[in-house]
């Protein structure tokens, strides 16, 4: 049972080993304006597509509900 934890510990140890990539301008640019621009655009490109797809899903759901309700109102009641 204890051996099961070894690979997990190895993975965590390996993750802690590498030093930060200093070439990454998002993390280590000394200019605040540039760093802020990277953070802003990263957020934009992450959340914008999710918002679009989510918005379309909500809109389609509302449309389907509306059409369903209209269909039920149009259907004549059963007789006998």
């Amino acid at each position, binding site marked *: 049972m204890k051996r099961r934890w070894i690979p997990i510990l190895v993975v965590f140890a390996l993750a802690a080993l590498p030093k930060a990539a200093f070439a990454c301008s998002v993390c280590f640019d000394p200019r605040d304006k540039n760093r802020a621009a990277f953070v802003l*655009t990263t957020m*934009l490109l992450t959340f914008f597509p999710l918002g*679009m797809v989510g918005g379309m899903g909500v809109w389609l759901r509302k*449309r389907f509900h509306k059409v369903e309700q209209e269909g039920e109102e149009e259907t004549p009641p059963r007789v006998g």
Partner: protein
Amino acid sequence: MSSGSATLTLEPRPAPRGHRKAVPDGVVAMLLFVFAEAMLFAGMISAFIVVRSAAAGQMWPPYGQPRLPFERTAINTSALLVSAVVLIVAQLAFRRSHERARIPLLITILLGAFFVGFQGMEWVALLRQGLTLQSSSYGSFFYLIVGTHAVHAVAALGGLVWAWTQLLRRRLTQSAFATVQVFWYFVVIVWPVIYLKVYLS
């Protein structure tokens, strides 16, 4: 001969009673296309923001490059925004009768043509002032972003012209009109973002 033979006729299955599409297929397809294009613009504008923020000496526009004419472009922006309002009027009129939608749709097309023509004139003026694709990253991004928008504006304008010709022939359907409208609204919505980020930055 005919007594033993059976004829098989294939007829489309009738739609169930009360069945109605929630959203036309064309509109869904256009929305998906528009989402992809929105990401294209988001990517280009993001790249522009990052390059601008990293500009040498925080000088923007770069030395020797002309300033973009944001005062004149405000007129152009207004024309485009008004075209969207007039297109809404055309849609409302179309619901009542096809004839009533003709004039608002024609006005939308004329406003769209004015926008594209005005942009062309602006480009000629900027090229004369020395802002080219190769002159700086400023020029490269300007022509790339605004040019991509212009391509979309021309394509959407083509769609509106097609809708108008179909309207004159009384062949324009509600779903086809809605599909063309989605594209034009996309062109209109993207422009203020470009104006704020590229022209007013």
